C-alpha cells in the first residue's frame, strides 16, 4: 500500500525575522549601551497551517513580501520556523535562483559536478547523467568554458538542467521561469508537465496568473503573513484581484 501521508505539512508555522538594526560593532555597541533597540522583529508568516498531498501542484501567490519565498525556504530546509512545525517527506529539489553555487572560474562541466553533488547526486549518478544534462541545456559547445563567460541566460539554462536531473520528489520553483527566452521557458514548462505526470509534488511561486491557472491544481493566496484563501486557482486569483482593487 502506498504511503498516503502528505508530502509537505505546515503546522501553525510562524516565522519571525530578527533583523539587526546595526551591522557593525561600531554601531551596535553605542546602541546597546544607550539601551536603543538593537533588533527589530518582522513577522513574515503568522501561524500558518496547510498540507500538500503527494503529486499535487500548488501555486503560491500574493504580493511582494507576503512570505511566499519564505515558505519555499522552509520547505527546502534552508530556514527553520520560529515556532510550529514543518514536515517534509521526500527529496526536495530547489529551482530557486538557478546556478547558485556556480564558481565563475570553473567550466560548465566542473560546475555540473559541483552543483550536482550539492543538490544530492552522487558522482556516479552525475557521470551517468552528464550527457543528458548537457543536451537539455543546449550548451554542448560551451560546456568546457569557464562559466564567467556565460550570459545570464546560459547560466540559468545550465542551472535548470542540473536541477531537473536530480529526480526530485518535491520540486520548489521560485519565479525563475520569468527569465530566459521564450523557447527555453516552453521547454521548462514541458519538463514540469512531465514531472507532474510522474507524480512529483510541485510548489510553485509566481505572479503569472496564466501559468498558475494552467499548471497548478490548487493555489494558496498569502497576504499580511496569513493565508487569505486557498482552492482552485481561478477562484483564488479572483479573491486576490478583489483585494488589489480594494487596496488591501
Amino acid at each position, binding site marked *: 500500500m502506498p504511503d498516503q501521508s502528505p508530502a509537505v505539512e505546515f503546522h501553525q508555522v510562524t516565522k519571525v*525575522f*530578527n533583523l*539587526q538594526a546595526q*551591522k*557593525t*560593532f*561600531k554601531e*551596535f555597541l553605542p546602541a546597546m549601551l544607550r539601551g536603543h533597540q538593537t533588533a527589530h522583529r518582522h513577522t513574515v508568516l503568522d501561524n500558518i497551517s496547510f498540507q500538500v498531498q503527494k503529486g499535487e501542484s500548488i501555486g503560491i501567490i500574493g504580493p511582494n513580501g507576503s512570505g511566499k519565498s519564505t515558505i519555499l*525556504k522552509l520547505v*527546502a*530546509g*534552508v*530556514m*527553520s520556523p520560529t515556532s510550529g512545525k514543518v514536515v517534509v517527506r521526500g527529496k*526536495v529539489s*530547489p529551482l*530557486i*535562483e538557478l546556478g*547558485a*553555487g556556480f*564558481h565563475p*572560474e*570553473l567550466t560548465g562541466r*566542473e560546475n555540473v*559536478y*559541483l552543483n550536482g*553533488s*550539492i*543538490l544530492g547526486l*552522487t*558522482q556516479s549518478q552525475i557521470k551517468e547523467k552528464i550527457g543528458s544534462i548537457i543536451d537539455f541545456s543546449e550548451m554542448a559547445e560551451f560546456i568546457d568554458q*569557464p562559466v564567467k563567460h556565460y550570459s545570464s541566460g546560459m547560466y540559468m539554462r545550465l542551472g535548470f538542467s542540473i536541477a531537473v536531473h536530480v529526480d526530485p520528489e518535491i520540486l520548489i520553483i521560485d519565479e525563475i521561469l520569468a527569465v530566459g527566452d521564450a523557447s527555453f521557458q516552453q521547454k521548462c514548462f514541458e519538463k514540469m508537465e512531465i514531472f507532474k505526470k510522474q507524480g512529483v509534488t510541485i510548489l510553485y511561486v509566481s505572479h503569472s496568473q496564466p501559468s498558475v491557472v494552467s499548471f497548478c491544481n490548487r493555489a494558496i493566496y498569502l497576504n499580511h503573513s496569513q493565508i487569505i484563501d486557498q482552492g482552485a486557482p481561478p477562484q483564488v486569483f479572483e479573491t486576490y484581484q478583489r483585494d488589489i482593487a480594494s487596496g488591501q
Partner: protein
Amino acid sequence: MFSIASEIVQIYRFREVLWQMVKREIKARYKQSILGYFWVILNPLAQMLVMSFAFSLILRIPTNASSHIPYSVFLYVALLPWNLFANSVSSACNSLVSSSTLITKVYFPRSILVISSIFAKIIDFLFALTILIGYMAWYRIPINANIFWVIPIFIIQQIFTIGLSLFFSAANLLYRDVQYLLGLVLVLWMYLTPVIYPADLVPTRFRLIFQLNPLSVIINAYRQTILGGGQPNHLSLLIATVVSLITLQLGILYFKSREKIFADNI
C-alpha cells in the same frame, strides 16, 4: 562529546559535497593565476628567507644550543604549520559569508563549507612541505623515529583549527568585524607562539600561558620531533589535546546554535 560524533557522521554522509567543494577551491585558484600552485610554495619560501635574514643575521636569535640547525630550517619547520593554522582559520572565517547564495538556497550541513576551506589549505600545506623536505635533505639534517609524532600532533592541530574556525565563521555572519578582528588576533598570536624564537627562551613565569596556548605546544612539538630533539613533552601535548577538544566542542555548539538562523541573517 556527543555533538562531535554526530557532526562527523553528518559530514561523512555529505562527503562527496565536501570533496567537490575542496576541488572547487583548488581548481579555481589554479585557473586564476599564471603561476597557479607555485604561489603556494613561493609565498612561505619568500617569507622564510626574509625572516631568516632579519632574525639570524640581524637579531641573531639562538636556535638551540646543543644542535647545529641552521636558523632557516629551524624557522621553516614552525612557520609552515603556523601558516597552515592562520590561513585555515582566516579562510574558514570567510567561508560562510562568501557562500551566502548557497546558504539561502540549498540545504546541506553548513559545516561542510568551513571544513572544505580548511582541507584546501591542508593541500596547500602539503605542497609547501616539499621545500622543507628539500631543505632538510640539503643540510643533511638527521631524522629519527620520533618523526612519526607529527601525525598525532597534526591531528591535534586540526581539531583546534576546526573548533576555532566554526566559531569565527558563524560569528562573522553576524558581524563582519570578526574577520578584521581575527586578522589582528592572528598577527599578535604568532608573536606569542614560538615560531621565530625557540620555546626555551620563554621566561619561566610565562610558561603557564604557553602551556595553555595549544599552538605553542604544537609548534614546539613539531620542531622537536622533526629536528631530532627527542620526544615531545607528553603532559604538554595532553593539555593541548584537551584544550583543542574543548575548543572543538564549544565551536560546534556555537555553530549549531547559530546554524538555524544563518539564512535569516545574510
